[in-house]
């Protein structure tokens, strides 16, 4: 069975500092990985997916199959980045999306 682990429940950085939200997964096949974000009082929304290899709001994430990781990074955090971030995995043959525990990011002024 697939599993997603986000080791940090809370992460606090200052504005302008780099930020990295960790995500590790376990799955025997070839997964597709995602990052979802939930801003205060808003619904969960997709931030980025590994197959797109895109940068959204300055965030990037690289899938490292050797380390089974999909860490989310941003070189200069902004206050508006404060939110709950979820890493998620979907199997290529499945219909279920498995989420990690979530990391609450706070960017202080």
């Amino acid at each position, binding site marked *: 069975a697939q599993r997603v682990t986000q080791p940090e429940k809370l992460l606090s950085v200052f504005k302008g500092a780099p930020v990295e939200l960790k995500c590790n997964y376990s799955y025997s096949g070839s997964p597709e990985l995602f990052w979802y974000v939930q801003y205060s009082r808003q619904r*969960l929304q997709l931030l980025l997916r590994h197959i797109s290899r895109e940068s959204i709001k300055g965030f990037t994430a690289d899938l490292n199959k050797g380390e089974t990781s999909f860490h989310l990074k941003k070189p200069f955090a902004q206050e508006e980045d404060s939110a709950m971030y979820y890493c998620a995995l979907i199997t290529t043959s499945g219909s279920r999306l498995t989420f990690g525990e979530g990391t609450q990011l706070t960017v202080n002024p």
Partner: protein
Amino acid sequence: NAGVTQTPKFRVLKTGQSMTLLCAQDMNHEYMYWYRQDPGMGLRLIHYSVGEGTTAKGEVPDGYNVSRLKKQNFLLGLESAAPSQTSVYFCASRSRDRGDTGELFFGEGSRLTVL
């Protein structure tokens, strides 16, 4: 363009009461999901459906039942509510079309408190 709509948004129940959460989507998605969100535990899948008339258990199905009588609706029922079911419930849907990227579209959530 409503997307995914959940009702009710808030509800307080007494232990042993029953209730149904309704999820409706207007995107003609095949897949629909019910998750619960609890502090420190992330989003956990309760039940899901891959099409009209089909349902399947997720990670934490006990105490819940679901039905998908119409493609656009996915109902989550609590037959006898327990305090452990106090949570925020999210419905989500996604497409099964070719080229599907796996993106889930979420509702705003339903906050349920069981006393």
